[in-house]
Structure formats: C-alpha cells, structure tokens
C-alpha cells in the first residue's frame, strides 16, 4: 500500500518534539518457538494537533502499537514518551496515572459502560481522577455539544446508534484534555457514511484541541481526514 503523508506534517523520522514519541520500540509476545514480534523497531513521533493514521491488516501489530503508546503494555525494548514523560521506566501504578492524565482512548465499538448515561460516561474519567466538580459538568456539556449529542445527554448506550456511541466515546476520551489521543478501529461497527463522519470528527477535535492523535484501522477508505498515514506490516511501520 502507498503511504500518503500530509505536506504540512513531518515524517516520523523528522518529528522531534511530538507529544507522543516512540523510539526504536520492539515488542515480542510469547516465548521460545511461540514468540511473535508484534512491533519491530518502530519509530513514531506525533506532534500536538497532528492526526496520524496507521493502517494495516489484522495481526499486523496496530493494536500493539496503541497498547505500547498508551502505556497498557511495556515494550520489550525502546522508549515511549507521552507528554514528555518516559513511560517504559514507570511502575504499573505510575503508568496508570500517566494514562489518566495524558492519554485518551477511543475504543473499537466505543466501549461505553452500560449503566451510565452519556453525561455520566464523560464525568467518569474526572471522577476517577478526583476532579469531579461543576467545571467538569460544564466541560462535559460542551463536549457533548461538540460531538452533536446534546439530545442524547441522558441516554444510555443501548439507546444510542453505533455512530452516536462512537461520538460519545470520543467525547469521553477528550474529557481530561489528554495530550495524546489513541483511537482503535473506530469505524469497525459503522457504515460508510457514519465511518467518514466519525473520522472527520476525530480530525476536527484533534486540530481544535491540539491533541497528538494516532488512529489505527484496517479500512483505507477513511484516511483522507488524517494528516499523515503509515502502513504497518508484520510489526514494521513504514
């Protein structure tokens, strides 16, 4: 596949001051004969306000890239920096705190909590961080409005369409004003029109809020909105 790189963005090799930076990151899963190289000497730098898409087939290592970038998994070698903090040397507890403060995740099929309304989904990250106050509620209302879900504020996930769930998931990820936004296959449950709409919204919010966004997907048709696109094959980023 051809890698398209936006002319206003730097390549992974040249970006030097990104909010997200992976240097020579490798990840091996399993031991002995069963060992699989999920990430193979990956370098990636994403600047604030930059929307990078990573495409590749299933099993190419896209989700491993997100797991390592978001501090969910320790790389076998290399370093990961998020908002200036080096994640690889941190304890599990410190990595959890780093995720809480600097990373926003948008999951496949949104991963909303069944018992919470849209408003509560957004308030949850701030409750986890002990910062649930009036300002948080105002910010949640603003974000719900920004993703076009004001009429769905009191709805629970089962009352939302797939596109609405994905938008709620994006708004939740932005609640803590994360430096880095990691998006995992956001369109897997959406039709073509809604997929394009969801990706456009992610691009819009990335540029507006200055987050360093990485979206992994296996769909090539939705990448026009990305500033930069990389292909991932067998754990290698090109």
């Amino acid at each position, binding site marked *: 596949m051809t890698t398209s790189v936006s002319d206003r963005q730097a390549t992974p090799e040249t970006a030097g001051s990104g909010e997200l930076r992976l240097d020579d990151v490798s990840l091996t899963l399993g031991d002995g004969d069963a060992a699989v190289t999920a990430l193979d000497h990956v370098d990636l730098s994403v600047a604030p306000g930059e929307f990078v898409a990573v495409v590749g087939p*299933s099993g190419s290592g*896209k*989700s*491993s890239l*997100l*797991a390592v970038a*978001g501090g*969910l*998994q320790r790389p076998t070698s290399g370093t990961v920096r998020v908002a200036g903090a080096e994640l690889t040397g941190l304890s599990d*507890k410190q990595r*959890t*705190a780093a*995720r*809480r*403060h600097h*990373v926003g*995740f948008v*999951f*496949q*099929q949104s*991963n909303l*909590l*069944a*018992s*919470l309304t849209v408003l*509560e989904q957004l*308030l*949850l*990250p701030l*409750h*986890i*961080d002990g910062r*649930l106050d009036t300002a948080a509620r105002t910010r949640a209302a603003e974000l719900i409005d920004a993703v076009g879900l004001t009429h769905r504020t009191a709805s*629970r996930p089962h009352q939302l369409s797939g596109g609405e769930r994905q938008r709620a998931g994006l708004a939740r990820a932005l609640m*803590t004003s994360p430096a880095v936004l990691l998006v*995992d*296959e956001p369109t*897997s449950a959406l039709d073509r029109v809604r997929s394009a709409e969801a990706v456009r919204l992610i691009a819009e919010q990335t540029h507006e809020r200055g987050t360093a966004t990485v979206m992994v997907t296996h769909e090539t048709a939705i990448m026009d909105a990305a500033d930069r696109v990389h292909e991932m094959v067998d754990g290698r980023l090109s």
Partner: protein
Amino acid sequence: MFLALRDLRFARGRFALMSAVVALIAVLGVLLSGLASGLADAGISGLRALPVTHMAFDEKATSEQFSRSTVEEKDWQEWSKTPGVERAEPFGNTLASAEVTQGSKKGEQVNLAVFGMAPDSSMAPTPNEGEGLEEGRAGIVISQEIADLGVRVGDVLTADKSGVRLKVVGLVEETVSYGHIGAVYADLDTWRHLHYGLPGDLPEAASRQATAVALSLKPGADIAAAEKATATRAETKEATFDASPGYAAESSTMTLIMGFLYAISALVVGAFFTVWTVQRKSEIALLKALGASTGYILRDALAQVVAVLVGATVTGTAVGLALGSAMIGKAPFSLSAPAVATSSGLLIALGTVGAVVAVRRITAVDPLTALGAAR
C-alpha cells in the same frame, strides 16, 4: 460509589434477587437467634438470675451436676471460712411434679423446677405479690412461668411422690425457668422433702444436704484450698449452665445451624459477586485503561457489596423482628438487641468476606483487554 450506585440502579433486577436472598437469610438469622435466646432462657434463666459467681459441686459429679451432686453442711461452712469468699450458701435444685389441689386450676398437673435456699439467703426471691420464704412453712414463691399456667398466690399444690402440700405464698413477676420448666423457690426443708420424695420427718443426714454450695467470690479467693478441704469442685455460674438438662445439646445445635447459615450466606454472596465480577471483566479492563487504579475499582465494588448487604440485611432483620414478635409466648423465643445485632453484623461481615474473595479477581484484569484486538 460513582459506578456502584449506577450499576445497582441499572441492574436492579439482578441485585433485587440477590438482595432478596440475603434478606431471607437475615430473616432466618433473626428467627434462629431469637430461638437460641428463647431456648437458653427456658433452659437456664433461673440459674442466670441467681446473684452468685460460682457453684461448688460434689467433685464426683462431673456432668449433669445439678441432678448428681450432693454437698453437706460442712462443705458450705468450710467454703464460708475460705479467704476471698463473700458468701457460701446451700442451694438445692430438683425437678418435681405436683397437682393443684386448691385454687381455680384444681386438678391440673404442673411441673416445677424447685430452687431450694435459706429464706435469709441472698438468693431468696423478693416477691412482687404475696410474701417471701419462711423456714418450715412449706410455702413456695412461684415465678411468672408458673403463674402463666393459672396458678395464683394462695393456691395449694400437692407434690406427687412425697405428698407434701405446697402453699403458694408469693409471686415474682419474672419469667424464670430451668430445664424448660417454670421455677419455684422453696425453703431448704421443703426442697429436701421434694428432692428425696419423703413426707414427714427427714432422716438426719438428708436434713444437712443440698445440691451445691452457691458462692459469691472476690477476685483472688483461694478456690483450690477450699476445693481440697471439701471434696467439691467450683465452677463459674456460666459454666454451670451446661449442667442444665439439655442446655449444652440445644445451644451447640443452634450454634451449628447458625454457623452453617453464615457460611452459606458468605458462599451465596461470594458466588453472586464472582459471577458479577466475571460479567464485568470488560468494563473493569476499560476502567483500568481509562486510568482507574485497582484500588479505585475495588473500593467501588466493595461499596456496592456493602450497600447490597446492609440494605438487604436491615430489611430482612426488620421482617425477622416482626415475625419474631408474633412468636413470643407461642414458642421458646426471645429477642435481644445484642443477639439480633450480632446475627445481622455477622451476616454483613461474612457476606463481605465472601464478596472480597470474589472481587479480588479485579486485580487480575488486564487493561490491555480493553483494546479490540486483545479481546
């Protein structure tokens, strides 16, 4: 409890079922504790009410001492002389049956748990109605248990074997019994006639005997020396409860049943929250991926457990108290605040222990599974 309360509201059907189970266990807990208290009262409330600290029995009587022990006058005299012994008094205990031969219930049979004591003894009853004991009068003071059978002050009872006429001279308005039989208080001479089943004059030896020496001891009393000198063995008042007929068997049976009930409740609560935690695995992974610490999730889960247990236990306890109140008087049942509180507290505590074991699974959930490809 951000998530806990919302989960309770959202999955109210599942939690209502679980709460109903816990509430029913709480009802059963209250009823069993009431029954245990009632049986204990019926078995030993007469002994419990005695103002003594210890009882000294014939050392040869190692079980069922109240029916097997005989002590002599020299024994209580020896105990009286022992340093640290405040009071040492003869105490007689026997079960007897009698017929009401004078009174409104004439012709009816009554069983009596007869406590014999000197009229000037510290154990002698202070009647609410009528008079107290008097040596040689063959008068008895009945407890409320006997009055509830229709026996009144002024009635006369005739003992079955000895034919001794017992005039009811007083009433204590307390429900006092021994071995599930209503207690009556008699002077020692009357008690001896009933105990030995002998009318008329008693043999010389019998007139100087009692079942036990009732003791009031100060701390540091030389119990060993007195025991050695008298060939008796002193036991605390509480330890003598086991010598009451059937008491040890009843209380151990009730303890066993309640123990099983608490174990079952811990298992039921643990099983429910194990299933609940397994069902929430993907949500827990998500929370961890969002930056929630394991402590945050555990606190939330445990708050949910405690909310369910407390709510259901309080409801169940209230229902149990209502049902129990209706049973009082119809069965050996008594409600005491400490027993009910202990039963409810244990249910909450052991249920929480069961749930803690279940929700510990939270610590093992990997946040990585929140990512689609890892699911």
